[in-house]
């Protein structure tokens, strides 16, 4: 990770509340997850569902970018490459941060909507994973 990356992944207060509720509520499938894990998941989910959403005031640092694994980073980097259709974006940490947070913004809101709705979120997400994967 080069110097072009910001230190933290920042989200809005409203999104922060959703991350907290989804990772702490006893009936949430993400109860045992860390917030950075849910962020990467939300970003990938948001990308798959085409939910890129403009960011509002992002007052809250959700996690430090350094805390992600290589695999998680490559998921987010690839989304940024596909978005810009240019592999040179890999050198632009700020650009990757922006794209990842926009997709995560849409993703977390949709996941939260599903969590508070009537769907069995666990069943839906695991089914999606099986359908999309090349198996």
């Amino acid at each position, binding site marked *: 990770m080069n110097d072009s990356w910001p230190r933290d992944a920042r989200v809005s207060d409203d999104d922060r509340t959703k991350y907290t509720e989804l990772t702490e*509520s*006893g009936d949430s499938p*993400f109860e045992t997850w860390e917030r950075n*894990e849910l962020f990467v*998941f939300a970003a990938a989910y948001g*990308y798959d569902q085409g939910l890129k959403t403009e960011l509002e005031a992002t007052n809250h640092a959700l996690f430090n970018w350094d805390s992600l694994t290589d*695999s998680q980073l*490559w998921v987010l980097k690839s989304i940024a490459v596909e978005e810009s259709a240019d592999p040179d974006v890999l050198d632009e940490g700020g650009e990757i941060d922006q794209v990842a947070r926009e997709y995560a913004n849409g993703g977390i809101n949709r996941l939260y909507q599903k969590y508070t709705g009537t769907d069995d979120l666990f069943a839906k997400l*695991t089914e999606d*994973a099986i359908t999309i994967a090349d198996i």
Partner: protein
Amino acid sequence: MTEILKIEMQNYRQYHGETTIDLNTDRGRTINIIEGQNGAGKSNILNAVTLCFYEQETHQSEDLDTLPYVSESVLEDLDPGEKATGYIEVHLGEKEPRYIFRREFETYVTPGDYNDQTKDLKLRMLKNDQYELVQSPLTTLNGLLPAEVKDYFIFDGEALTEFFEEGFKQRVRDGIIDVSHIGVLNDSIDHLDTVRGEIQRKAGNIQGEPAKIQEEIDEVEAEIEQLEDRVAELEEQRDETQSQIDTIETKLRGASDAEVQELVETKDSLKQDIKDLKQERDDLRQKALNKLIRVGPAVYATRALEFTEQQLDELSEKGQLPPKVQDWFIEELIEDGECFCGRPIEAGSDVEDHLQELRNSMSDVSTDQLEGKSEIPRVIREGNDGAEEIRDLRRRISDKDTKIRDKEQSLKEKKEKLRGIDVPDDIDVSELATQQDDLEDQKEELNIKIGQKQNQIDNKQDEVNRLEERQKEELRKKGRSTEILQQVSFAETALEEMRGIREEILTRIRRETEQNMNYYFNDLIWKEDEYEIHLADDYGVEIQSPDSTDNRIGSLSAGEKQVLALSFMAALSDISGFSAPVLIDTPLGRISSKPKERIAQNLPDYLEDTQMTFLMTDEEYTDEVQGQMQHRVANEYQLVYSDGKTKVVPQ
């Protein structure tokens, strides 16, 4: 070691007249056995000790509630308005009694009933070869064995069978808190929290927006308080319902009809199977979720990963992305002046020029682009492999669901059959079974209600936190009340620190309890395999056998559960820091015959260097059990019950 040297009773329940039980033990023989049939008065010896010390009887039963403290045989000659008295004395010490605790009681006869009264605890203590009356006996008692830890020294073994049933996490948590001596810390935290609230309210006195927010905070906090009261009520109702279910269960098990017995057994076994299957399903679900954390992002982003991989491949094909060679490796070659094959790399030579060119071209290529070429295929592969595992886990979850449905159907059928049984001259099986089913439904509904209320409390608490943040922000904006803000901030920091200290103490005690439980459980259990017990941060207990990593807590036999509970009690009595004697009523509870003998063999080592007094039924203290324990027994008594009176006869 401090021992109970003697228990003296006068006219206490069925112990009519004067009764003395000498429990002084010899070196190496630290066990006392008091044997008696059910109803002979074993539990009342346990009760005598706790009534004397703590003014409460440990063993509760429906019969005891209606019976007077003073022996009925003494009261039967009295008229309404008259009273009779009695006392209990417990002598504690090492060889010689150093502490003599005494509690007197009296029973008044009222028309058709009795009225019990107890007097204050008295203590005579040996000082300079003389017994002196101690002014504050409770202080001395608290130094020997305070009320909050007494249950780990003086307890009813039969009740332990239920200890690791539903809701055990709360019991484990309570036990650990009892022995952690954090009472003062808890009081300080509560006090500081109140102070913080008061300061915050002061902030509310300021006019304008902060005051309005304070009103909202007060309202939400009042709602939380109401909800907490409601949860406490519902929990009490649930415990009461569970106790009624247990009473019916005992009655049904006592039915003489073989078909009823078998149906009750099958019903219980089906319930246990369903519970185990649900636990296994939840474990599989958790595994699938853990997998989803790791591979879900790669699966959802497969399209992007493949696109990026293709882009990097194209760069590579165009020669814009050289094979991944670390630039430091090339620099080292140039510096060493020799290739790893032994060929020299001379300064200014074509070879060195070529290497320099390669290194310069590499610095123009992003390291990320180079890494991506090898990383992305791995991430895609991991995603696909993980999705395959998730598919397999979902299949297994679905199998468990089918089995759960089948078992639930069987359970429904057995319940219906039981409700339809009419056995003349026996207990009313049909009525009891119907009552039990209704109570179980009620319990389930209560559990749901408790969960819902708990969620509401959590949400309200979040709301309070948000409001407090908003209030602070408003105060800051106004640039006023700096001092109040500093005070709030100080109180919050202090609270956080104190909660941290409390958590650290509890974590340490949890670890010690876990270690002790492993030691005692493997010491007491009759199996040769070494079991591993884990005590989780949420006070859940996991037991693993050497051949499997599955948690066996849900599938332990009654005997194993009893041993686990005994291990927990021993672990806590150790950690409590008090070296008090141990008194256990029915220590082997409902354990079946073979394991019973084996536990008996290990029981003398249960707590070394501690006096242990076991109150045992004749079914527990069999010839085989006696044979296993005899070498450690100091005193043995038989309780002989006749005409409503019990005599303690030395054996």
